[in-house]
């Protein structure tokens, strides 16, 4: 089984600072996403699975329509596998109600006028993200013991929580350590990949203009996110 641990907004700097050895594996580095006008989640994961830059196509759907992007498996490199399992990937089988609610709560947070209201919305937002994280973690753990030739688990927690809490270092460290423990449970050769990283704006988090990769097999240098379709197919 080939495994991809896909972590939204996993920040290279924090992986090193928090010494997440299982996320780093033997070889790790940054991905080059400089060909994209902005580090947009939906554009980057769509480009990853298609093996080519999908920015124009995804952006043509508009700011709201973009979030409903859904590529057929035949257009993706997942089709090369006989029994692939993909969990919650943007642009493929992303759980729409979950992620729509995240954006609704994010908007409510910024629209709120009082600090008490913001605090209450942030608590609801965080709980919503952590509950989802626990479900995905269980599904991924179960899938590792199933009969798949390809498994991709997408974890959104570092991105979702990071947008409103990136300045809370203890909370981010807890998330990174949890992701590191998840990586430790993968016994197969695997790739850890993020779409982009995250940088601090006070207590908040913004997308950084590079992603993260790691591999136990070889040094991939400074790959583009669109290179991974071929890299993974070659591992078959």
């Amino acid at each position, binding site marked *: 089984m080939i495994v991809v641990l896909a972590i939204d907004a996993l920040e290279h700097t924090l992986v090193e600072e928090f010494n997440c050895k299982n996320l780093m594996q033997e070889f790790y580095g940054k991905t080059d996403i400089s060909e994209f006008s902005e580090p*947009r989640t*939906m554009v980057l994961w769509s480009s990853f699975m298609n093996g080519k830059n999908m920015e124009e196509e995804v952006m043509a759907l508009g700011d709201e329509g973009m*979030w409903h992007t859904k590529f057929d498996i035949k257009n993706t490199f997942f089709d090369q596998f006989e029994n692939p399992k993909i969990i919650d990937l943007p642009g493929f089988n992303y759980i729409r109600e979950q992620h729509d609610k995240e954006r609704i709560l*994010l*908007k409510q947070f910024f629209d709120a006028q009082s600090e008490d209201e913001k605090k209450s919305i942030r608590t609801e937002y965080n709980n919503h993200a*952590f509950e989802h994280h626990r479900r995905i973690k269980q599904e991924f753990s179960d899938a590792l013991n199933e009969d798949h030739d390809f498994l991709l688990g997408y974890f959104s927690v570092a991105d979702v929580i990071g947008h409103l809490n990136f*300045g809370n270092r203890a909370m981010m460290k*807890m998330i990174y350590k949890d992701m590191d423990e998840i990586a430790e449970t993968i016994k197969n050769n695997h790739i850890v990949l993020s779409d982009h990283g995250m940088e601090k704006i006070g*207590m908040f988090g*913004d997308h950084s203009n590079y992603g993260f990769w790691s591999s136990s097999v070889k040094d991939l240098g400074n790959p583009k996110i669109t290179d991974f379709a071929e890299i993974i197919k070659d591992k078959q």
Partner: protein
Amino acid sequence: MSVEYGEIKIPKDLIAKIEERVKETEFESVDEYATFVLEEVVKDDDEDIEEVFSEEDEEKVKERLRALGYLD
């Protein structure tokens, strides 16, 4: 090697506050949360600074989240 545990005394109202906080986190118990926090304090006593809210930061991040498609 198995970890040996001991007991410490902390005020009950603090335990109640931690119980509330634990509900918002990945931690499964007050013991687990308190252990994590104390380990962090002992290990990195000068690094875990929590940033405070500022309207200027909020405006900056709102602008960025609009550019990324998260906000209208």
